[in-house]
C-alpha cells in the first residue's frame, strides 16, 4: 500500500471536513442504528427483567396464578430469615475461597504455559478439557468419582480419600469449591497466559541488569504488569460465584441439609420448588446488588474504568 500517495488527498479532505460543523455527527447517526438490534435483545431480556425482578420482589406469585401486591413483607421476611443469611454467608465463603484457590493456581499456570516449549502447548490443550464439559456432566462425573467404594479412593487405594464427601456438611462445601476450581482454573489460566504474553520483554531485561532475581521479577514486574488481567479475571471469578447454579444443583442439590445452598440455588429452590416467586425475587435483587457492587469495587481498585484500562493495554 502506498501511503505516500494517499496523504495529500487525505489532508485535503480533512480540511474540508473540519470546515463543516461537527463532521462526526453526520456519520454517527446511521452508525447508531447498527447497535439497535443488540440493544433491543439486551433491553428486552436483561434490562426489563432486571427492573421486573425489583417489582416482583414487592409482590406474591406462585408461578401460575395471579400476581398480588405484597408491600415490603417479602423484604422484611427475607431479612428476618436466618436461611437467607446462611445462604449469603455460604455464597461469600464460596466466592472468597474460590478466588483464593483459583487465582494463585491460574496465575502460576498462566505464567508457566506462556512459555514456548511444545510440551507446554500440549499441557494447555489438556488443561482446557474441563471447560468443554457441561456443569451437569461434571457434577454427575464427580458424584461417581467421589463414591467411597467405586470411585477414586478405591482406585488409588487411599482410605483417607474414602470419605462421605457429599454427605458430610463440612466436606460437601469443600467438594463444591474444588469442583468449581477444576472447571474454571483452565479458563483463568488462559486469561493469565494471554496477559503474560503482552508484557514487554525489555522490562525484564532492565530488571536483570539491575540485578533483580527471578522471584523479585515475578512480584515486582509480572504481577504489577498483570494488574488489569488480575482485575478482569477476579471480576469474572467473583461475579461468576453469583451464578453457580447447575453444578451445585446436580452435585448436592444444596445439601446435605442446607450446607451448600448458596444464594443463586436458594433463589431457584425458593422460586421454582417452593413456588414463592416474591421472596425469590428478593434474593435475586440481592444477587444483582452484590454483583454490581463487586464489579464497581474491583474497577475502583484498578483506578480506571474498564474501557480506559482496555485502551491502556493496547
Amino acid at each position, binding site marked *: *500500500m502506498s*501511503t505516500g500517495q*494517499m496523504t495529500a488527498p*487525505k489532508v485535503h*479532505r480533512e480540511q474540508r471536513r473540519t470546515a463543516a460543523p461537527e463532521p*462526526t*455527527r453526520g*456519520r*454517527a447517526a*446511521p*452508525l*447508531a442504528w*447498527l*447497535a439497535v438490534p*443488540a440493544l433491543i*435483545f439486551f433491553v428486552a*431480556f*436483561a*434490562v*426489563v427483567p432486571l427492573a*421486573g*425482578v425489583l417489582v416482583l420482589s414487592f409482590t406474591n406469585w406462585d408461578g401460575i396464578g395471579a400476581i398480588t401486591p405484597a408491600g415490603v413483607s417479602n423484604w422484611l421476611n427475607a431479612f428476618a430469615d436466618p436461611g437467607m443469611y446462611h445462604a449469603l454467608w455460604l455464597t461469600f465463603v464460596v466466592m472468597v475461597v474460590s478466588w483464593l484457590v483459583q487465582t494463585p493456581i491460574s496465575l*502460576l499456570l498462566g505464567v508457566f504455559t*506462556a512459555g514456548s516449549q511444545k510440551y507446554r502447548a500440549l*499441557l494447555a490443550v*489438556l*488443561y*482446557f478439557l474441563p471447560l468443554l*464439559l*457441561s*456443569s*451437569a*456432566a461434571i457434577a454427575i*462425573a*464427580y458424584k*461417581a468419582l467421589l*463414591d467411597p467404594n467405586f*470411585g*477414586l479412593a*478405591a482406585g488409588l487405594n487411599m482410605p483417607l480419600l474414602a470419605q462421605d464427601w457429599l454427605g458430610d456438611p463440612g466436606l460437601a462445601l469443600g467438594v463444591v469449591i474444588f469442583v468449581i476450581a*477444576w472447571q474454571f482454573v483452565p479458563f483463568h489460566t488462559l*486469561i493469565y*497466559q*494471554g496477559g503474560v*504474553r503482552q*508484557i514487554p520483554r525489555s522490562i525484564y531485561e532492565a530488571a536483570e541488569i539491575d540485578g533483580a532475581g527471578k522471584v523479585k*521479577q*515475578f512480584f515486582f514486574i509480572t504481577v504489577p504488569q498483570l494488574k488489569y*488481567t488480575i482485575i*478482569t479475571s477476579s471480576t469474572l471469578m467473583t461475579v461468576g460465584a453469583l*451464578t453457580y447454579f447447575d453444578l451445585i444443583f*446436580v452435585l448436592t442439590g444444596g445439601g446435605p441439609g442446607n450446607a451448600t445452598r448458596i444464594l*443463586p440455588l436458594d433463589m*431457584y429452590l425458593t*422460586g421454582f420448588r417452593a413456588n414463592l416467586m416474591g421472596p425469590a425475587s428478593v434474593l*435475586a435483587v440481592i444477587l*444483582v446488588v452484590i*454483583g*454490581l457492587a463487586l464489579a464497581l469495587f474491583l474497577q475502583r481498585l484498578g483506578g480506571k474504568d474498564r*474501557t480506559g484500562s482496555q485502551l491502556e493495554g493496547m
Partner: protein
Amino acid sequence: MKGRRRLGRLNLPGGLAGWLWLGITIVPIYYIVITSLKTQAGYFGQNPLAPPVSPTLENYRMVIEADFTRYFFNSAIVTVGAVIPTLAVAFMASFAIVRGKGKFLAGVNALFLMGLAIPLQATIIPIYLMIIKMNLYDSLLAIILPSIAFAIPLSVLIMCNFIRDVPNELFESMRLDGCSEWQTMWRLALPLTKPAIVTVGIYNGLGVWNGFLLPLILTQSPELRVLPLGLWTFQGEFSVNIPAVLASVVLTTIPVLVLYIVGRRQLLSGLTAGFSK
C-alpha cells in the same frame, strides 16, 4: 520471538503446579472414559482406575436408544439458533461502538459493560413470566431468546477489542474510496474481525450447548429436552447403572470436543486477545 527467555522464569513452582494440575485435570476424565466402557460387573468388581477387562459399547448403545439423538438435535437447534443472531447483532453493535461517536453509543457501550457485572441468572423469574406471557413457554425459542441477550455483553467486549485494533489508516482509505460505513463494515471490518467472530461463536456455542438453567425453567416436555437436561434426567432414571450414566456424559461431550479440535487455535488466540487487554 519476543519474550522467549523471560517466559522460562518461574520454572520450578510453575512447572510443579503445571504437572500437578495436569494430574488433577486428567484423572477424572480418564475415570469417566474407562468406566463408561465397563460392564456393570466390571464396575463393581474391578479397581476403579484399571482399564476395563472386557471393554463394551453396550452402555453407549443404551444411551443412544434412550432419546440421545433427539436431545442432540434440540441442543443443536438451540445453539445455532442463539449463536448466529448473537454474532450478527453483536458485530454490528461493536462496529458502531468503535467507529461511531455520540452519547447514544457511549451509553450502549456502558450498558453492555454493566451487563458483564450483573449475574443475569438473577433475572430468571421475570424472564419466566415474560416467556409465559409471550406464549413461548415450553418451546425451543424460549431458550434461544434469553440466550442471545445473555451472550451479547461479552461478545461485544471481545469484538470491540478486535475492531479497535484495525489500523485507522485502513478505515481512512476505505472512506477515500467512497465507501459508506455500511460497506466499510462488511468489506473491511468483517474480514478483519473474523478471528474474534469465530472465537465468540465457539465460546457462546459452548455456553448455550452446556446451558442448564434456561432449559430447566423454560421448558418441560421430554421431547424438548436439551443434552444437559437429558443427562440430568437420565442420571435420575439410571442412577444404579453408573457406567451407562458416564457413557451419556461422554456422548454429550463428544460433539463439543470435535468442535474444539477444529477451532482450537482460533478459540485460544481469540480468547487470549479478548480478555487480556
